[in-house]
């Protein structure tokens, strides 16, 4: 029984850690897409810029030697936030501002921006990936004694989960408790009226987009702990983050949280073959087991997860928490 509980805990941890990576990546997009209706296909590239900012901070701090070199991750988070927020600001003022109310055009324009950003990084830094190594205290993990080889919960993943929680709580408090958050929500709900009441809508837009971009930068810092940093890093995350936001219901922070966790857990369960192992003992479920085994490698697991998302969107096209109202369309 204890063993089963342990397995469950470990499974839950793994699922939640995958989900938290998705969530922190999708948080910025949820704000930009949810509050402003702007499709930002350059979101992945903003994450990539955050990761590169982390790389540069790492190099600087490594130059100063220990103990500074150990702290670089903490310092990299605000740096990544500021850098990508600035880039987002430029993007908003330069391009997005003229495309409000035309989401399809924004989609194309931001795709163009993503191409430019990628190529920019390739020409200025390098086409090759760069090495971002976590400081020693983030490598390794908490040991849980089970059997001969202890299972280890990686510190990096725990760090990311904590960072995600901080970001989500921070965004919540910013949006719901601060005056600028109030202005953002007002402009989202009724732009003309907000303008009439004296809220500087243009500044609010710029701030919202910068916030979303900054969060993308923080996500970029987080993913350096898990994977490679290179010009194409953003492309690995962009579609997944869009799925999280769309499934969660546009404009709903809570929905994004739920959908990220659910998608993370489902991806884990299918990819690691846990579904198959759980159902194995049951005789009449064998064909189902065979079906799940076919999808058990990570390649096919992705197919299945997306298939499930598309199926889910048939049932609830507006996501888990659709925006309330009496609109004829989404």
């Amino acid at each position: 029984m204890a063993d089963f509980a342990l397995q469950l805990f470990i499974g839950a941890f793994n699922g939640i850690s995958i989900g938290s990576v998705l969530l922190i990546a999708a948080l910025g997009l949820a704000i930009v897409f949810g509050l402003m209706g702007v499709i930002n296909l350059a979101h992945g590239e903003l994450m990539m810029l955050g990761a590169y900012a982390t790389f540069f901070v790492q190099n600087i701090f490594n130059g100063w030697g220990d103990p500074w070199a150990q702290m670089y991750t903490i310092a990299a988070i605000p740096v990544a936030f500021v850098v990508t927020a600035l880039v987002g600001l430029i993007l908003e003022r330069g391009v997005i501002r003229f495309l409000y109310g035309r989401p399809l055009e924004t989609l194309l324009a931001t795709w163009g921006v993503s191409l430019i950003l990628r190529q920019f990084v390739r020409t200025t830094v390098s086409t090759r990936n760069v090495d971002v190594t976590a400081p020693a205290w983030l490598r390794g993990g908490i040991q849980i004694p089970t059997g001969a080889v202890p299972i280890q919960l990686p510190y990096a993943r725990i760090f990311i989960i904590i960072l995600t929680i901080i970001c989500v709580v921070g965004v919540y408090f910013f949006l719901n408790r601060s005056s600028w958050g109030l202005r953002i929500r007002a402009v989202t709900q009724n732009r003309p009226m907000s303008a009439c009441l004296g809220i500087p809508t243009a500044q609010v837009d710029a701030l919202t987009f910068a916030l979303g971009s900054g969060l993308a930068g923080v996500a970029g810092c987080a993913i350096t702990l898990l994977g490679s940093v290179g010009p194409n890093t953003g492309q690995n995350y962009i579609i997944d983050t869009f799925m999280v936001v769309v499934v969660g219901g546009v404009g709903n922070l809570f929905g994004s949280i739920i959908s990220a966790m659910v998608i993370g857990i489902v991806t884990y369960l299918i990819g690691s073959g846990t579904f198959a192992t759980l159902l194995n003992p049951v005789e009449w479920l064998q064909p189902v087991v065979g079906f799940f085994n076919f999808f058990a490698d990570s390649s096919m697991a992705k197919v299945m997860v997306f298939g499930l998302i598309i199926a889910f969107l048939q049932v609830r096209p507006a996501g888990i928490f659709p925006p309330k109202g009496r609109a004829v369309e989404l």
Partner: protein
Amino acid sequence: MVQPNFGRRKFLLYGTAALGTSILLKACGAPPEEGSTTTPDEGDTTSTPSGDGDTIKVGILHSLSGTMAISETTVVDAEKLAIKEINAAGGVLGKQIEAIIEDGESDWPTFAEKAGKLIDQDQVAVVFGCWTSASRKAVLDVFESKDHMLWYPVQYEGQECSQNVFYTGAAPNQQIEPAVEWLLKNKGKQFFLVGSDYVFPRTANTVIKEQLKALGGETVGEDYLPLGNTEVTPIITRIQQALPDGGVIFNTLNGDSNVAFFKQMQGAGLGPDKYPVMSVSVAEEEVRQIGPEFLKGHYASWNYFQTVKTPENEKWVADFKAEYGDDRVTNDPMEAAYIMVYLWKQAVEEAGSTDIEAVRAAAVGQTFDAPEGKVTMNANHHISKTVRIGEIMEDGMFEIVYETDGPIDPQPWNQFVPDTKGYGCDWTDPAKGERYKMEA
């Protein structure tokens, strides 16, 4: 919501300014890794590859952009260095080599398109190119239908022996099979196979599974990650379930996935003491990009490491660093690319011309004192290579823990896979050709 008109003139101005600046930036401050393109001759109507005039044109076809650019740009550098050295020493047949570099854009149909262009439009004498098996297979038809010649420098999955290709990378029996044998002897009998989802890992794993069966090992699991995917947690869980007490992991992941894999393996506590990982796509360049901290104590199987102790290698590494920078490293595909240019040069000089048929015949039997040791071109268009296994050290270099006594002959048709067991390839004998049954 009506927004103020942007002002087309302003935008066009800024747009062209940005574009112009970017081209200028690229042209002026170009680091040596950029591919320089010489404009192809228009209206060159000679039907034989251009051996007339005072330059000989060769084609270089690799991905200079896209996901594969990470690896392939280093190979282009090695080829350019070889060409530069040959030109400095007088060129081939007294003529200078002119390299026409094309970008495959990590897109296989583009590879086929550019291969056609190099052969038909630029009329090159030979093409040095490709990295992924997909790109090689994409251009194979072009080279075979036009009866041209491709030299391919990367280790691959075998099961191919084209008359129009010369392979200077390792076949599975020169890289994978010796690694499996060494692992069985030194590390354990239970293997978990992890790879990226494309033909090389799939075929390589077929070979490994058959070999393990024949030699008394056991395959406990097999998993494939889509290219570029970075979520490794499910695979780690499966490894832990299949090998609770530790075991050998054979890694054929490629590209970005390797970074994620090693970082997350260490995070999950699967270290090289209980879970040694043998990789065949991780070389010095990748170690640098992943970070030696995550790779310390793991292994890789290649024919060449930068730490190989031969006088040729010491000279080559020094020359390479002098040309491209002290922080650069050399690895196996780069070395294979470097030597294939020399092998081709030797073949041309023996044949006395750049005519494809003559060079092809002259290439077989060529030997070269390569940085990896002596190599010989076999009749099956592959070269015999020394096999080495290296352990990754803290400084990012490999310590060679195993080395064969001499070069191993290549077997393009794998002798463990039932479908190709007993077959060989011999292009010097018209009766044998691509695939013939060898006598026992």
